[in-house]
């Protein structure tokens, strides 16, 4: 399996505050990688560096590199819109746009210039099917997305991310606002998605990391302490700090 994203000596500062310290890691494609660690450890910051979401914060300074398909995404000639099309993102709270279910999913493709109705129909259906929500919404595509339940809204947001045919989907605690049943549906969905996509997910739920991820990265105070196969890390972690954190004796 080849690596789709690699970061080398990645450092990030918020003003004077260093939030990431020399992060070097390779993320294999078509796998699920969980980023874990206590609040403020840098895991969400790291996630956001992968599609340059941190560019939106003026005081952020970045050194080192993040390569997506062997190209440094912090190079000057990078098209950020194109990068964010290929590396999509799903947030903690479902954030559907106040428009119809159909328009939510068609939004991305339209901004990328697709106007043909038949083509859009096809894209919307495929994305909703991939996000395992098609059967629930196919008869009300023109209704407002805000009428969906929280779990459905989150799957709609995943469909919206998939509609622009990304290769990588970044997820920032995508189930933390959902009930157990919706959580379990999203987890099943994430595991199906890895056939086609690379998933990188920030989670505070250790059991979720164990259940769904192939690889886990443990962050602490801006350092990447340990990266490896999830099964191995949760049965026999190499670093004492990882052991203390995942067994709940440190945090």
């Amino acid at each position, binding site marked *: 399996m080849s690596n789709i994203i690699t970061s080398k000596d990645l450092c990030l500062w918020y003003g004077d505050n260093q939030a990431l310290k020399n992060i070097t890691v390779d993320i294999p494609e078509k796998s699920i990688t969980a980023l874990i660690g206590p609040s403020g450890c840098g895991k969400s910051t790291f996630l956001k560096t992968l599609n340059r979401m941190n560019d939106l914060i003026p005081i952020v300074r970045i050194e080192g590199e993040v390569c997506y398909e062997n190209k440094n995404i912090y190079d000057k000639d990078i098209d950020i819109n194109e990068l964010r099309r290929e590396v999509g993102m799903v947030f903690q709270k479902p954030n559907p746009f106040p428009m119809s279910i159909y328009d939510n999913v068609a939004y991305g493709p339209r901004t990328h210039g697709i106007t043909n109705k038949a083509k859009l129909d096809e894209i919307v259906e495929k994305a909703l099917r991939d996000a395992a929500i098609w059967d629930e919404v196919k008869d009300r595509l023109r209704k407002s997305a805000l009428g969906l339940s929280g779990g459905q809204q989150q799957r709609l947001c995943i469909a919206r991310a998939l509609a622009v045919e990304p290769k990588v989907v970044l997820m920032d605690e995508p189930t933390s606002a959902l009930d157990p049943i919706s959580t379990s549906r999203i987890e099943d969905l994430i595991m199906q998605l890895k056939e086609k996509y690379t998933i990188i997910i920030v989670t505070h739920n*250790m*059991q979720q990391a*164990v259940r769904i991820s192939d690889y886990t990265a443990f962050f602490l105070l801006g350092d990447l302490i340990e990266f490896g196969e999830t099964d191995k890390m*949760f*049965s*026999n*972690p190499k670093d004492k700090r*990882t*052991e*203390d954190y*995942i*067994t*709940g*004796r*440190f*945090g």
Partner: protein
Amino acid sequence: MIIMRSRFDEQLNHLRKKMIEMGAECENIIALATKALFDGNVEEALRAKEEGIKIDELEREIESICLKLLLQQQPVAKDLRIISAALKMITDMERIGDQAEDIAAIVATLNGRVGDECIYISAMAEATIKMVTGSIDAYVNEDLSLAKEVLKHDDLVDEAFISAKASLIKMIANNINDGEYALDLLMIAKYFERIGDHATNIAEWVIFSVTGIHQQGG
């Protein structure tokens, strides 16, 4: 910041105590069976049966503690290894109890004849008690070198079994009327040899619970 999971740690300590208790019962039952064998004491042999019941009860109790811990605490890493090792170890301890009971049951049919006519058996009894004690101590104290020592001891038990067998064959050759007695002793020797194997399994699970690597020897 260090956070103690005090309730969980208490439960793990409780599990350790129960493991010590079950280990002690295993030592006891082997000692009882051995004593009955060398004293020709049928009453002692019958007491081994009672001990066996205690061991079975402890197995069920520890099993339910482990299942509760898995359910409530969703343990990972070392916690998970300690609990899953305990679940495997109690099966071997229960078998040790059964085999000691089987030894006692044979003693009860020896009609007062004692087992000291085969010196290798007493060596086996001594070595297996040491192995059981050592493997449980190693679990409780997470003592890797002690667990490895237990593994070495098994070779001594196996050698003693081969010697016992040879001496019992000689016994039959010398006096054909001793045939039944010699076969009974051979079965007893075999049970001790199996007890050694179970203690070896326990020590291997101890090594797993400390290192995360489960090596299977035999």
